[in-house]
């Protein structure tokens, strides 16, 4: 009988993702579709299993039903384990308290019991809304080698953008001497990725202290990490070099999807040495008809393409009828683009029907912004949806 796990991962998946607007009306951000066959959470879960971490708590709060169903018993990620595996951790009623997760730190604090069950030496804190491939085992090695109490994954960002991030100011050996949350005059280009490894005992200690502090916002970045630094704990930055994208906004989500395109894609999801696991659709191969034209695109199983698709990402079971055009767009599963319709520079969620000769969005060069169509809505025939519009209800024109 196994009695402990060296490292347990805690995945924060409860955020509302309000900057994704209609896409997160009734699902949590990590459940949003990405890259033709994935959901955002697939990347973090795949990173876990590929890094040898087989015990993952997924903390859900906002609209968790679809996410719960998607994660299920964890089998697609090989996380259905007799000891460990993936577990959905929702807020619960306890004998002395019952409350929603109040902040990232509070969410973890409420699940100390879950972590302790595995008696881990280390705890890895993750966000469920990042697209990247990262070997957490290497980060853990660094954490052990430096003897740190907390290691924070960081990435170099262009210095002119650094003021949008939480910035780590570090000494030569990588130890952190200062955090600056969105500094006006950044001293460093090392941005926190929101991925932390804690030595478990330290994590428990500081979470308990944080919980007793009524002035705390119960947030890792704002409260727990600064408290540890002030107390003189050893904190190190771990430099991650590779593709990493926070897809918390419509623009970032669109851009990250487009990074999958091309002969040498910016982000390669097909690396056999680092597979991205997901639930797979029950669909036959994609079909491109005699009239279909597909250029510079990614197309999933079950699609039927009779029209034109250019520089776009299509999830499973999307239909593009004859004479229809899809350009610079992300189309999620089951959506139908009817005859003669045109979709430009848009993100279209699952199960949408775009009527005949309808026009959604406009050319990227002239568009006011990315057009977004929420789940299962219907756009009438001959209707025009202006660029930059975000719709979450059926639309038959003004």
């Amino acid at each position, binding site marked *: 009988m196994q009695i402990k796990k060296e490292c347990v991962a805690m995945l924060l998946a409860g955020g509302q993702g309000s900057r994704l607007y209609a896409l997160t009306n009734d699902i949590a951000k990590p459940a949003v579709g990405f890259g033709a*066959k994935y959901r955002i959470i697939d990347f973090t879960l795949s990173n876990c299993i590929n890094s040898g971490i087989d015990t993952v708590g997924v903390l859900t709060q906002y609209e968790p039903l679809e996410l719960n169903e998607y994660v299920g018993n964890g089998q697609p990620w090989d996380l259905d384990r007799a000891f460990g595996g993936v577990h959905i951790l929702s807020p619960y009623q306890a004998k002395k308290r019952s409350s929603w997760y109040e902040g990232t730190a509070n969410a973890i604090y409420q699940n100390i019991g879950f972590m302790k069950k595995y008696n881990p030496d280390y705890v890895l804190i993750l966000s469920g809304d990042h697209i990247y491939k990262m070997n957490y085992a290497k980060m853990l090695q660094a954490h052990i080698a430096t003897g740190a109490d907390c290691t924070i994954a960081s990435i170099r960002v262009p210095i002119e953008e650094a003021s949008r991030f939480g910035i780590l100011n570090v000494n030569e050996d990588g130890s952190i001497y200062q955090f600056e949350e969105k500094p006006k005059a950044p001293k460093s280009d090392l941005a926190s990725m929101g991925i932390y490894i804690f030595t478990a005992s330290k994590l428990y200690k500081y979470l308990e202290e944080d919980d007793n502090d009524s002035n705390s916002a119960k947030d890792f970045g704002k409260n727990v990490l600064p408290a540890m630094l002030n107390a003189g704990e050893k904190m190190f930055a771990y430099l991650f070099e590779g593709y990493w994208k926070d897809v918390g906004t419509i623009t970032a989500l669109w851009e990250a999807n487009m990074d999958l395109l091309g002969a040498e894609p910016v982000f390669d999801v097909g690396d056999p040495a680092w597979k991205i*696991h997901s639930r797979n659709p029950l669909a*036959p191969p994609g079909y491109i008809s005699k009239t279909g034209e597909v*250029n510079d695109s990614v197309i*999933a199983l079950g699609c039927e393409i009779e029209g034109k698709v250019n520089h776009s990402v299509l999830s499973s079971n999307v239909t593009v009828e004859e004479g229809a055009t899809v350009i610079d767009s992300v189309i999620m599963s089951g959506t139908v683009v009817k005859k003669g319709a045109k979709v430009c520079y848009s993100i279209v969620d699952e199960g949408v029907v775009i009527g005949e000769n309808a026009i959604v969005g406009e050319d990227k060069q002239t568009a006011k912004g990315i057009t977004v169509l929420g789940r299962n809505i219907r756009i009438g025939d001959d209707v025009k949806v202006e660029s930059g519009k975000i719709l979450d209800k059926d639309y038959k024109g003004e």
Partner: protein
Amino acid sequence: MARSAVGVIFSNIQDQNIPELSKHRTIASIPFAGRYRLIDFALSNMVNAGITTVGIVTKHNYQSLIDHLGSGKDWDLARKDGGIILLPPYSNETDKPYTNRLEALKGITGFLLHRKEEYVVLYDGDGVSRMDIADVVRFHEENNADITMVYHEETSVESHYYITVQPDETGRITSLKINPKINGNAKFNMYINVMVVRREYLMDIIQNAVQSGYSSFGREILAKNVDSMRIFGYKFDGYYANISSLARYFKHSMEQLDKDVRDELFGARDIYTKVRDSAPSRYIEGAVVKNSLVSDGCVIEGKVENSILFRGVKVGKGAVVKNSILMQETVVGNSAKLDCVVTDKNVSIRDRRNLAGCPELPYFVSKGTML
């Protein structure tokens, strides 16, 4: 409903029909339609009829079959009670592995004996269809039949061994012939190797056959007893493809480019198969793809027309692939030209190569070849 039935799939019994593709695998594990294996159709039809226990009779070359089936979870057949049960050949110093269907059945009497289901659905792994097995079992019950044989109207046949049946107006088969001569393009009713029989009745048949020293299920059980047994014919009207030669494999594969065929087989999205987590397929700038099926994990830079691409196929720049079936991980080099080619798994075609066959005799490239 057909919880009262147990499935038995013969994975090898038709192997000799298509030696090119069954050299390294059972006929049931022949890849089909870009992401499936033939056995997926048999298994899915059974599962969709509520069957939760399927015995799979194997004889040789079944590594790829085992790899494909895994625990059975992709068909929802990883069960505590039943699920997929592999039935490897039974042999010892005196008994050699089976050479015919009766011996194969004799080898699984232990499996049949310990099941509780009322009926057995016997199914060969050589056909492609989406069939309502529950309806076949219902038909069997309604007719109080001893045996129900499913048939399909055909105009030609290429199998080494086939059975034609003629039912009367009540559905009872009154005439049953083995390997009769087929004249011209006349329609005939071909038994499509799907049979329903009461489990205990089947065990009696097997025991009786063993005692009598029979060796042919077709000749010595079915044909001989067509008058004394209540053998009924269930007419299957849907799409059916009998994979009985390479030319047939080619023809029926190409039929999958027809939307009506695809809608019938896959429209309900209930044909299950093993999941492999390939990336979605990438079409590079300048790629031209027409009338083709493209599975996951492909990267296409060249031209693809009237073809079927399995998982992970790469088509290089300037390459032209026409009327071809490229199985898993086939790599077509830059400026290579393929017409009427069938490549098995992991084939590599060098740059600027020209390969051509014809529909009656497709150019076949065997597994792992570099050309």
